């Protein structure tokens, strides 16, 4: 444990969240650590509290929420650790987008609907990287190119509603990566997308991780995507973290029932297809 915490760059300790007085908690005593360059997945059914954890990590929870526990971003050893929940707003603003960035499930909704893509990107570049106004536009097109957009000029001129879901998710990813963050939180980045586009985005995230030393916190309900993108899976069931295991030990016999159920669900469609094929052949 001691040996491990020296490498960990992001630590959540005993986090509990309730949205209002008298309401049931949405997270209870959740602890997890992410090491530098590591990818972990937070898997659970909808309503289990996994998105709340993502919001807490960016300190985007409503001010009225009741929060206990701590979230610490360590970064590399030169920098002082940042206490996400305890710091003042200005410190947090320097963390958001620069050191922790986030991609949402609904990419079109997470973009500003009345601003052209290149302008949004240029603005983010100016704010988080301090790029000058004149070079920001070129930088915007470059970052579009980096997320696999073949025609950055045309996409840059477009408004968010003119993009397809997959294209918008690429743009959202470009926005998130603009600040060269250490940690990327991806909240169901592919659930709203079709099969082929899903595969494209999974491939893109994989490629990005290969190129940069980016840590990834993937939030999903689909064990298949978790397996494809990460090397450790944390399972949340009904507000509690019930399992935390490396991807290669997922199928071990002594896994928690919730983990087994989620794996089964992911396998079901595939296995049902196989049984059906066997039956009909």
């Amino acid at each position, binding site marked *: 444990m001691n040996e491990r915490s020296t490498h960990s760059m992001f630590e959540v300790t005993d986090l509990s969240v309730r949205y209002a007085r008298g309401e049931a908690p949405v997270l209870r005593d959740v602890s997890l650590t992410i090491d530098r360059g590591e990818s972990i997945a937070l898997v659970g*059914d*909808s*309503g289990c509290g996994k998105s709340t954890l993502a919001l807490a990590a960016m300190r985007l929870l409503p001010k009225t929420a009741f929060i206990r526990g701590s979230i610490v971003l360590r970064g590399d050893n030169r920098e002082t650790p940042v206490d996400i929940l305890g710091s003042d707003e200005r410190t947090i603003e320097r963390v958001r987008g620069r050191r922790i960035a986030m991609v949402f499930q609904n990419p079109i909704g997470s973009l500003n609907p009345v601003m052209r893509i290149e302008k949004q990107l240029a603005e983010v570049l100016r704010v988080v990287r301090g790029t000058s106004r004149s070079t920001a536009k070129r930088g915007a097109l470059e970052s579009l190119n980096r997320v*696999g957009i*073949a025609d950055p000029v045309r996409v840059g001129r477009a408004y968010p509603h003119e993009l*397809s*879901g*997959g*294209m918008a998710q690429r743009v959202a990813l470009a926005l998130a990566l603009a600040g060269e963050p250490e940690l990327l939180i991806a909240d169901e980045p592919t659930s709203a997308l*079709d*099969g*082929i*586009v*899903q*595969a*494209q985005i*999974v*491939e893109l995230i*994989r490629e990005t991780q290969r190129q940069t030393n980016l840590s990834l916190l993937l939030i999903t*309900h*689909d*064990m*298949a*995507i978790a*397996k*494809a993108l990460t090397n450790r899976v944390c399972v949340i069931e009904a507000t509690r973290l019930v399992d935390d295991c490396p991807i290669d030990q997922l199928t071990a016999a002594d896994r928690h029932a919730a983990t087994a*159920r*989620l794996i089964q*669900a*992911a396998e*079901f*469609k*595939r296995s*049902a*297809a196989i049984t*059906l*094929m066997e039956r*009909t*052949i």
Partner: protein
Amino acid sequence: MTKSTRTSQEIERQTPRLEVSDLHVSFASRSHRRLQRNKPRVHAVRGVDLSLQPGACMGLVGESGCGKSTLARAVMNLIPLDRGTIAVDGNDMHRVESKASRQRIQMIFQHAHASMNPRMTVESVVTDPLRFDDRCTKSERSRRVESALQLAGFDAPLRGRYPHELSGGQLQRVAIARALVLEPDVLICDEPVSALDVSAQVEILAQLKDIQQTRSLTMLFITHDLDIAAAICDRLAVMYLGRIVESGPTHEILRNPQHPYTHYLSAARDLKRTSALQPLMGEPPSPLAPPTGCSFHPRCPIKSDICHSQTPVLLSTSQSSLQHQAACLHSERMDELKEITTNR
């Protein structure tokens, strides 16, 4: 068509339960240029033929924007057709005025939540269709509602709740109950599980399959997920840009796709698990101006010059099954394509 086995001959003779022939649907583009004189038309469905035997479950698979939901709405008589016919047991649905014969097709909508009036309880949502069933007397209503809810596996104590108080899975069960309460012969399912968690998806799919088999419903199941279609459909039709590009028995299509697009769809499922394959890049072309010839040629790695000019038709390609058809001019080169995608 040449003679095949006896069983398929018998099938050919029967009138299909649901038959869609040469369906064309287009609508005025909702572009932001409101003042444009000649608004471009979106050609959502461009000549689709489907034929479902009684008790069949056909999966209609394609990416979003390929026209599969438009097709469902056209079948439900919710939008006007440009051309073509939709017939149930040989009766043209857009001609008959009788309510009873229209009620033989019912639909489950993609967003269960949006498809229910937020001001009505579950009970009244499911009762509502019965007001328009002339055969059903008032006293019979509650019995029929109860049996429909039971059939859909809905928790009876929750029937007094409002839609926003239910989970996605329960809500979809209400939608199923509402579609079944009129005891239709044909059920159209428009992405019934895509908004649900994987675990809820599994439950709903099992329930649907169960209902389909016990009631011998004819089902058209629309989805973008090949896994889901494969799990519950015995036949598949793959749609790309308003046309069917491949159709046939599910296991044939999954084992031996005869159209490059189907190949990529099926490869995308593996890509979520391993990283051995190259995904199909790019985006589908705009249905405002579909490409000439084969719609898939702008993204196809095995295209040739004739693909630009000649529009392929659905033809039976494999020797083993005449029902397996693909609309590709180069389906003999599929092995080549498989090599291209695996060697990255």
